[in-house]
């Protein structure tokens, strides 16, 4: 419309200035048409013109930028020091790499109805760089909850604040740093606080939180990281002994603490464990009523077995666990389970004696029988060769 007006005006008043304007206008128009029709080369737009982080921070380090979205306040102030320490800053990631819709001021209006909805529009950009982790999350219990309508379930940014997230893995090793490991339960505790409270008091959690001991499992060692699975399924339960065994059969970890690595073998040797192992291997989805590690030792609140209060080395404490399946069990019943011990004169002398007895009894019986039978056969053969008649 504006162009049309311009053309009409050039016809009415002839001047050099007007014709130059017309020419320029036509050139612009032609360029516009050509560039619209010909495909644009796939090169990042504004690559050079991207506003630097300092440019954004010039405003965003100011207090009082928070804005209202529905009933929620959205914090928009970024602490430059915190951001400077973050892995994203370290890697030279720019604000607008994630805030892709912002290029200049004034910013486009945020259309989301509330803070959570706003997070949901933003977190998908994580996939640009972290596709592997992002796709794993798609298979996780958190994603399933989101799909089921629970928008409180964790998305990337709930665990990893992109403005403050420090480096989690060693630059060269690629392994989780001790500091990152210590921090994991705190991250999960933001939602799973009840479990964290139990974990804190457990032998594992206490060592991690009090002694910064990273030999112990954090949340992710049992539950996984991004593709966290539902831990209440039958197959998860059936696999529990093998999960615990990852560390508890590893002498490199256990020897330091004088803990036996025979726990899995002794468990599988007993019929509870035999059955669970069979289920795990043959039909992991089939429920079994046999106990797994956690049924006796606890889950997040695992305590040392010789803990004077809660340890299951105390028969009274173990009995409570037994009674969950054997309600009529009495105080002598728990010792029917050999507590991962190899029978020895000190531990389970009766079983040791039975073993010892058969160690001698079987060769003695076998030897005696075979001796009698073989000599009898021999004498018969000799008899028949010699022609001796009696039997």
């Amino acid at each position: 419309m504006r162009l049309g007006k311009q053309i009409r005006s050039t016809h009415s008043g002839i001047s050099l200035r007007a014709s130059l304007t017309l020419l320029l206008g036509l050139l612009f128009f032609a360029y516009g048409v050509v560039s619209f029709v010909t495909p644009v080369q796939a090169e990042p737009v504004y690559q050079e013109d991207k506003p630097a982080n300092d440019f954004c921070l010039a405003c965003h380090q100011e207090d009082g930028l928070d804005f209202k979205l529905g009933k929620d306040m959205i914090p928009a102030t970024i602490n430059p020091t915190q951001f400077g320490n973050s892995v994203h800053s370290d890697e030279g990631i720019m604000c607008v790499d994630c805030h892709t819709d912002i290029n200049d001021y004034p910013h486009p209006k945020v259309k989301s109805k509330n803070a959570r909805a706003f997070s949901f529009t933003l977190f998908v950009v994580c996939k640009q760089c972290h596709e592997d982790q992002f796709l794993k999350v798609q298979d996780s219990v958190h994603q399933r909850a989101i799909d089921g309508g629970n928008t409180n379930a964790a998305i990337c940014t709930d665990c990893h604040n992109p403005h403050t997230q420090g480096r989690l893995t060693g630059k060269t090793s690629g392994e989780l740093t001790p500091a990152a490991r210590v921090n994991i339960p705190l991250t999960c505790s933001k939602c799973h606080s009840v479990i964290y409270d139990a974990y804190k008091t457990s032998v594992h959690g206490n060592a991690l939180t009090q002694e910064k001991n990273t030999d112990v499992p954090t949340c992710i060692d049992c539950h996984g990281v991004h593709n966290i699975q539902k831990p209440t399924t039958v197959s998860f339960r059936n696999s529990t002994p093998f999960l615990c065994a990852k560390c508890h059969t590893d002498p490199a970890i256990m020897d330091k603490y004088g803990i036996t690595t025979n726990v899995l073998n002794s468990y599988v040797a007993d019929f509870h464990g035999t059955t669970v192992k069979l289920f795990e291997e043959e039909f992991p989805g089939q429920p079994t009523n046999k106990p797994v590690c956690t049924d006796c030792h606890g889950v997040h609140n695992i305590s040392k077995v010789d803990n004077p209060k809660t340890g299951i080395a105390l028969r009274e404490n173990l009995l409570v666990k037994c009674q969950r399946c054997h309600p009529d069990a009495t105080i002598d019943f728990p010792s029917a389970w050999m507590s991962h011990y190899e029978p020895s004169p000190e531990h389970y002398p009766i079983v040791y004696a039975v073993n010892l007895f058969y160690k001698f009894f079987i060769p003695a019986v076998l030897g005696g029988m075979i001796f009698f039978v073989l000599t009898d056969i021999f004498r018969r053969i000799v008899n028949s060769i010699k022609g001796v008649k009696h039997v």
Partner: protein
Amino acid sequence: MSGKKPINSAIARQERTFTRFMLGQRWEHAILILSSFVLLITGLPQKYRGMSWSQDLLSTPERVEFIRQVHHIAAIVLALEAIYHLGRAIYLMARRKMSADMFPNMQDIYDAWHMLQYLFFLRRDKPVYGRYNFEQKVTYWFLFFGFALMGISGFIIWFPVQFTQFLPGGVVPASKMAHSTEAVVAAIFIVIWHFYHVHIERLNLSIFTGRLSEDEMKKFHGREYERVTGQPASKLDEEK
């Protein structure tokens, strides 16, 4: 008794026979064979759960449950049979209606020593046995104690909660160990010892027929033959 007589005399026309086992005892043996066989074939897969053949057999929880129930039923049958056997033996022996021939005595030691000498070519004659020879007594008493042990330990591992009301918990794993180990020992014993003596050494079907021929009596149970008939059992005695 009167009904049996014609049959007896009919056989006697060809060959004189001696009653060795009563009909009830023969039935007991049949029940024993059946129940122990079922116990063995349902027990072994449970003992060797780590083996692939066992896992093929017990490939579903339902099958595990089934095989256990069959094992328990056979166990009850065998336990009832054992109680009947003991009760009957005690009752009859107390009333002097059954001989105590099955109990081991010094003669068995002498006989075994005699047999050992024979097997080493130190003697030319075999021992002359009574109603039950030492080999048969070894069979009976080995399995007697084996079955007793398996019975007791079996019920302990079947009812661990009840037994630990008055026994220490350690008896449960000890029973578990003893039960299946003893079972394997008993199975090997039957195959090597019992099968050799009743099938290979000579085919002895008296536990099924109930009878021994006069010839068999003379040859294998000479002293019993002499006791019953009052006649000398064999010429072999004269030979030595």
